[in-house]
């Protein structure tokens, strides 16, 4: 750890993290729904310094036709980082990392969607990281799930996601950049809040059995908070549209 260039000496000072949070505290999350008029559904998620914009198009005709699946929908997820999103410029276009994350996100979202009701159709989910400060894939999943709901896609549930990990020997929620770069463990997780099914679980580093259990429990609790934020954001947009009926 100490050998890395630019690493801070300690990631926990006086029992608090470098940005002043407690170990089990999330960064502030904001969700705005319906930000792209030309998309069928869209959302912006801000989680501390991480900002992701997501647009959903579909259901629509599958193009190119070779992607057609007559049994279920073709879920086309595209994760990308804007070239200006990090301190060091990212070369635009798909690369090994973004292709992998796109696939992982598609797998995390698919169990929430009634894929069989959209047989022979395509649903495109485009996620662009505007600003990266750790936890981009989980923020992208949160944005995508809200944007899918905004597009009126039939879903079993929303998907909530958070990255947690371990730094300086302490388990902590929602890592930010120094903790992500110089910490010991990074573990993104995505769940369906209703059934608590886990649809994404990745891990970098080593945890004991007890630690991983504790970290998963912590993450699930945070995901429930995120679910409430997602719900509020969606209801806020649609409540104004149906004001008269609700009065």
């Amino acid at each position, binding site marked *: 750890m100490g050998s890395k260039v630019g690493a801070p000496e300690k990631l926990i000072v006086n029992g608090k993290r470098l940005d002043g949070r407690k170990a089990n505290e999330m960064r502030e999350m904001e969700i705005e729904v319906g930000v792209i008029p030309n998309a*069928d*559904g869209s959302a912006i998620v801000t989680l501390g310094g991480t900002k992701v914009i997501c647009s959903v198009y*579909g*259901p*629509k*005709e599958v193009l190119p036709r070779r992607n057609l699946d007559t049994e279920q929908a073709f879920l086309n997820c595209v994760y990308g980082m804007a070239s200006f999103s990090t301190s060091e410029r990212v070369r635009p276009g798909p690369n090994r990392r973004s292709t992998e994350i796109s696939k992982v996100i598609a797998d995390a979202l698919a169990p*929430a969607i*009634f894929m069989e009701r*959209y*047989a*022979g*159709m*395509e649903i495109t989910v485009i996620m662009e990281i505007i600003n990266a400060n750790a936890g981009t894939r989980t923020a992208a999943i949160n944005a995508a799930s809200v944007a899918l*709901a*905004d*597009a*009126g*896609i*039939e*879903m*079993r*549930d*929303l998907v909530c996601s958070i990255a947690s990990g371990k730094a300086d020997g302490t388990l902590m929620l929602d890592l930010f950049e120094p903790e992500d770069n110089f910490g010991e463990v990074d573990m993104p997780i995505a769940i*369906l*809040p*209703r059934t608590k099914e886990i649809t994404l679980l990745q891990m970098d580093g080593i945890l004991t059995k007890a630690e991983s259990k504790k970290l998963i429990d912590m993450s699930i609790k945070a995901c429930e908070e995120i679910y409430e934020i*997602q*719900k509020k954001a*969606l*209801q806020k947009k*649609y*409540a*104004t*549209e*149906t*004001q*008269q*009926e*609700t009065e």
Partner: protein
Amino acid sequence: MGEKIHIKDKDIVVPGALLAEGLEYLPSGRAFRDGENIYAATIGLISVKGRVIKVIPLAGKYSPKRGDVIIAKINGFGKFGWNLEIDSPYKIDLNVGEISMNYVDLKNSKLADYFKIGDYVFGEITDISESGYISLSAKRRPYRKLLGGNIIKVGPTKIPRIIGKQGSMIKTLKDLSGCEILIGQNGLAWIKGDAEKEAKVAKAIKLIEKESHLSGLTEKVKAMLEEKN
């Protein structure tokens, strides 16, 4: 086993929201049953009628049902009919036999004599096969080819507002403008009349779409159509 309802009429729910517990209630619209409970599948408005809990979608594309009246665009030719396009991922076909009560003789005429690409047709969905094959009929009146006029796009979820309660809004539009107006459930509207009136109706429909949630809409639309008449 507990029977419990978690929502009330006119609530707004998000996908996955628990609506009711127990087998007493029945899901309808965009609601679904998982185990013994009922959940919402899309963002939508709740309507409770007795034991039936319905989720009316507030967003999403049009999904065809048998008996729906739609406005479709001719997109291509088949051997004995046309391929239609609606603002939806579903493909619809119009057979030659479905355009007129009379026999259409293709020996002496071409398909293009009846419909050209880009024409619009007003018709009813007669059948949806299991393989997703959808056919349209424009035989009987008022179904027909739409000659002239203007097509405007409105979201399929806003169609009920444009029609109004028992057709009150559409009647207002028709009476005050003198235009012919047809509304397709797939989210397209066709207006025909004076060029000036057409533009006015189009503007009024856009207003309904934008302010569908506000009250006093009928008065606003009336004022809009009557000005400078």
